[in-house]
């Protein structure tokens, strides 16, 4: 039998689908009492990994253990781990209550649990409706209700925010934090760090089936570099003064502002005063975690890059891929200029996001699941 620890251990797990290597020797662990985020871009192997953890997909190599045993040996699995998986199906002509009654019978919990679960995900009113008429968000809620039926110790959620409204997302965040606070475990996947940033304590970042980062979110945040943006009438003179003061990472933004990296705000202000350059505007800008994430996972579609070492620095400090990051970038040193550091350092800034797909790096509250 299982050890009741609430721990998930994934050990050197790999999966090939024919010629596609979906997961490559992935290792990580999920501890009770915290929410662990499982992050990676589309096609990086998140769903495949979670399905291997849940015994739905057989690994090509390695193993995944829940409470010390593979899923198939849990005995009554739904009483240990509840899961909401991507594109999980429902029979369209079965009602929500009947769907849960089917699950309750299999798990071996009384039917009262069904109405309780429906109520707790806010579907009590829709209980007698056929699932075929449900919205995506309602289906997500129903899947969550099914996952909770067995009162599990561990929750595994694959992109649960898909289709949820802001209220639902906020509710889910509170729910998951409360769940973990009871000493239970939560593993939640997403392709957007911003989406789970407010929810998770630990993150596992994967890219192309490899682990790109594993550790606490705070550690990842601490690695961020700030830069100072200066608007002044004579940028050239200020840049010269700064470089004399050993501040060398200076760039000019398209709007004429200087972007200074590697020096605190005060130092920039003092240098400007000494040089007699008036300052119209001085702001400090922190890299958004999303950019850190993008950099960790960049190269997924570039091809030919070696796998990242676990806990190692991200490769390359070029501009991140993706919409809104078009050229010219040129606001950072060339790749490889930074020595490798632990934890991984985000690269320099690309131009600010233009498409609005990524949260602005400056001002405003941190991006979260429901707030924007």
């Amino acid at each position, binding site marked *: 039998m299982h050890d009741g620890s609430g721990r998930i251990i994934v050990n050197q797990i790999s999966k090939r*689908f024919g010629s596609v290597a979906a997961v490559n020797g992935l290792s990580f662990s999920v501890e009770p009492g915290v929410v662990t985020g499982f992050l990676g871009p589309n096609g990086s192997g998140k*769903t*495949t990994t979670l*399905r291997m953890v*849940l*015994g*739905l*997909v*057989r690994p090509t190599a390695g193993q995944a253990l829940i409470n010390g045993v593979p899923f*198939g040996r849990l*005995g*009554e*699995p*739904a009483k240990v781990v509840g*899961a909401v*998986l991507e*594109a*999980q*199906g*429902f*029979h*369209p*002509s*079965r*009602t929500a209550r*009947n769907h849960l*009654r*089917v*699950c309750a*019978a*299999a*798990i*071996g919990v009384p039917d009262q649990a069904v109405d309780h679960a429906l109520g707790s995900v806010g579907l009590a009113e829709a209980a007698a409706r056929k699932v075929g008429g449900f919205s995506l968000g309602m289906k997500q809620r129903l*899947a969550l209700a*099914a996952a909770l*039926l*067995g009162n599990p110790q561990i929750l595994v959620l694959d992109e649960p925010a898909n289709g949820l409204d802001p209220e639902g997302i906020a509710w889910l965040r509170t729910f998951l934090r409360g769940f973990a606070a009871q000493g239970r475990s939560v593993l939640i996947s997403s392709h957007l760090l911003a989406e789970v940033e407010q929810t998770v304590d630990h993150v596992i970042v994967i890219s192309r089936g490899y682990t790109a980062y594993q550790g606490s979110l705070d550690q990842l945040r601490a690695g961020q570099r700030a830069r100072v943006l200066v608007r002044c009438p004579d940028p050239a003179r200020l840049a010269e003064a700064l470089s004399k003061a050993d501040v060398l990472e200076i760039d000019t933004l398209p709007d004429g502002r200087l972007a200074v990296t590697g020096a605190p705000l005060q130092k920039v202000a003092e240098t400007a005063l000494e040089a007699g350059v008036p300052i119209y505007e001085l702001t400090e800008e922190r890299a958004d975690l999303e950019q850190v994430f993008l950099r960790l996972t960049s190269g997924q579609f570039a091809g030919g890059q070696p796998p990242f070492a676990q806990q190692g620095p991200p490769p390359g400090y070029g501009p991140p891929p993706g919409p809104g990051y078009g050229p010219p970038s040129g606001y950072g040193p060339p790749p490889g200029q930074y020595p490798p550091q632990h934890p991984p350092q985000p690269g320099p800034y690309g131009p600010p996001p233009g498409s609005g797909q990524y949260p602005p790096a400056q001002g405003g509250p941190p991006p979260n699941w429901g707030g924007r």
Partner: protein
Amino acid sequence: MNAIKSEVRKTFTTKMWWALLIPITLISMLANAFGGLFENVVDVGDIPVALPSLLPISLSLTLNQLVVFAAVAGTIAAAGEFRHRTITTTYLVNSGRGAVLTAKLLIAAALGALYGLVASAAGSMVGLLAQEAKPDAADLLVTILVGVVVFALWGVVGAGVGLAVGNQVGALLVVLIYLLVGEQIISVALLNADSVAVNELSGYLPGNAGDVAVVTEPARGFAELIPSEVAGENAGNQLVEALTGVTNPPSSVVSLLILSVWTAVAVGLAAFFSGRRDIT
């Protein structure tokens, strides 16, 4: 057992089970009214002997036509989970794939038996009302009993194919093409061979085995009621041969065993493939 209770709820919370009962009931009623029509056309007074009841034999033929519904019900009950992707949830909440497999096969057997019973009841009711000649109760009951067993076995075969193939459309195609076309073609090929031993192999095909099992007893009973000077020697066997197209058909019991072996093959394939399949 939890898995069985869950499968029962699963089966009876969608329309499929009663939707298939409608054609079964209607066809069985229509087909068994024919004995009565036959009596009306033939002037009974012209025949020197009392005409025996046609009901057991017409019911057995009806059941053989309808058994495909049991196979289809089993297939849909099992493979529908792949179509609607509910198999993920099923495997997450049950205590193992083996439990799911067992429960699904049992439910398919029960569903098949139910269909066999309903078809028999509907056909018998109409037949008893429409026909002047009343059947021997034992003959009718044996026909129904064997029919229900064959329906249950075909339900299991359907579910087995569904779980082995893991795709509803694919599994339905396999079952329907085999039962409606494939077996006929194989039978014709076997019957055209010069060797009697090869001809006799047709009785070992699953569809034929089920047909022979169901038809044998009512056909023998029917033949016995006709004086041998009218019917000739060995009329029962000849009637079974004529009705099923099988050369030297094995007995009812042996035929049931043959169908059971085929059912076991389907179950084995289902266990092998459903235990290994990646659910992505």
